[in-house]
């Protein structure tokens, strides 16, 4: 009885949580411009999305490209910076360690608006003209802490002597890093990278404040401007549906694989 009630509660929450997403997905299969109008089944919006489309689709595609490019660069730089720093922080002691960890926690606790405003003031103060570079720098600053946080536990689990052993055996520090440390830290780096990539993709407020006036649009700022004008670009519906489907499939694949490798291990 308890089990049935629990399951019912979980599914009730999930249905509520997913209702808007299902709603987007359903209305991605109709041509109506206004969200919520059903004018019969059609895959026209999907076609528009891939061909550049009629309803200002080119601007949308540019926004998607910007979003992906910014997320990719920010996540890659954050992963390298975060991993190297995690190794450094791990080897620090006492007050220095606490200070840098405290600073590292700030971007994660700070609300986006504050991060955005503070970086905006920084760029104004330094007379740094705002655009791609400032957005990427801003994204690196709030993504790197997550990489550090994901790599640190790996360092704790690692045998500290193998790096020294590699050096003793004649490896240069660079070789030791590449051949010894990175393979050991890889899972932490990967989850850090994925988290950084997601944070960057989903960011709105920080981008909004640091993109300057050169007309740089990411998906978030595009949607914001669109909604303010009243009426969303209809092609956003198929886009969101596609993104969601891809992520769902990826997660299912990852989980099935994990379950399988677990099962294999227990058999052995």
């Amino acid at each position, binding site marked *: 009885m308890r*089990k049935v009630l*629990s399951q019912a*509660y*979980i599914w009730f*929450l*999930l249905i*509520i*949580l997913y209702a*808007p*997403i299902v*709603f*987007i997905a359903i209305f991605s299969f109709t041509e109506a411009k206004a*969200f*919520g109008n059903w004018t019969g089944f059609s895959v026209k919006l999907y076609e528009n999305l891939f061909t550049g489309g009629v309803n200002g689709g080119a601007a949308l595609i540019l926004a998607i490209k910007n979003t992906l490019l910014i997320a990719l660069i920010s996540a890659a730089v954050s992963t390298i*910076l*975060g991993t*190297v720093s995690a*190794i*450094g*922080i791990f080897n*620090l002691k006492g007050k220095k360690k606490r200070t*840098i960890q405290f*600073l590292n*926690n700030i*971007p*994660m606790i*700070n*609300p*986006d*608006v*504050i991060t955005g*405003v*503070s970086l905006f*003031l*920084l760029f*104004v*103060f330094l007379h740094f003209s705002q655009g791609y570079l400032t957005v990427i*720098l801003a994204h690196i*600053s709030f993504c*790197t802490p997550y990489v*550090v946080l*994901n790599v640190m536990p790996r360092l704790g689990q690692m045998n500290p002597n193998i790096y020294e052993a590699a050096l003793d055996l004649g490896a240069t520090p660079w070789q030791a890093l590449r051949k010894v440390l990175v393979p050991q830290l890889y899972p932490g780096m990967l*989850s850090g990278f994925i*988290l950084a990539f*997601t944070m960057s993709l*989903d960011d709105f*407020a920080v981008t*909004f*404040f640091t993109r300057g006036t050169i007309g740089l649009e990411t998906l*978030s700022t595009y*949607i*914001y401007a669109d*909604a303010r004008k009243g009426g*969303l670009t209809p092609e*956003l519906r198929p886009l*969101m549906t596609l993104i969601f489907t891809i*992520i769902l499939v990826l*997660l299912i694949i*990852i*989980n099935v694989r994990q379950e399988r490798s677990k099962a294999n291990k227990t058999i052995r």
Partner: protein
Amino acid sequence: MGKRSNWAIPYLIFLILFVALPLLLIVVYALQDGNGGFTFDNITRFFTDSDALSTFAVSIEVAIENTLICLLLGYPAAYILANKNLNKSAVTAILFILPMWINALMRTLATAELFNVMGFTLGKGTLLMGMAYDYLPFMIYPIYNVLLKMDHSYEEAAADLGATPVQVFRKVTLPLSMPGISSGILMVFMPTVSTFAISEFLTNNKIKLFGTIIQENINSSMWNYGAALSLIMLVIIGLTTLVLGGEDSEVEGGTV
């Protein structure tokens, strides 16, 4: 070792330049007039600006209500998800974080549209529902993590010593899950106070929250007043973090 601790130096410089200095600049700009002279006017202006004050009050109210709703809905969910007898699959837990991969603005707009179609008038009610929908995963996840790692022998011991299930929950499970609850509160309360755009979408511009006021001032080049409002926001954040114990409330880096 010795040498490898130097690897943190570039990041330390980066953090000082892109985290510490910008926060310091908020304080500097907040205490300056348009010509760069020192003044407290921006701060005092907030306390006489009835529009900003009422927005501030509404933001705190909405944030507290949203946090409570998320806690009441999220705790039982986290409890069930972390309990091996009630829930066997880890996939169900993942389903709760999956919607976060959909652009938050898009999700919010879809929620607002769904409310419209269902015939709700956009206002305070839809704001709270929509916000709970946006932030529920942030409450569930930390509590779920803590409950999952919890040593269940304490609960069994309490039950063996004659505690009723309600007593076990109140005296053992709940206190042990406090770190998760406080980081959940932190992760819901602060973004709610400072959110901008989301509240306008969910209420059809009827209710705006503190983040919007900051954004409006910065965007209309009122940098000093915008900075002063941000400073007030920072003070609230500092206080909340202190109350909830900043030490153990560090955000868990989740894996996919």
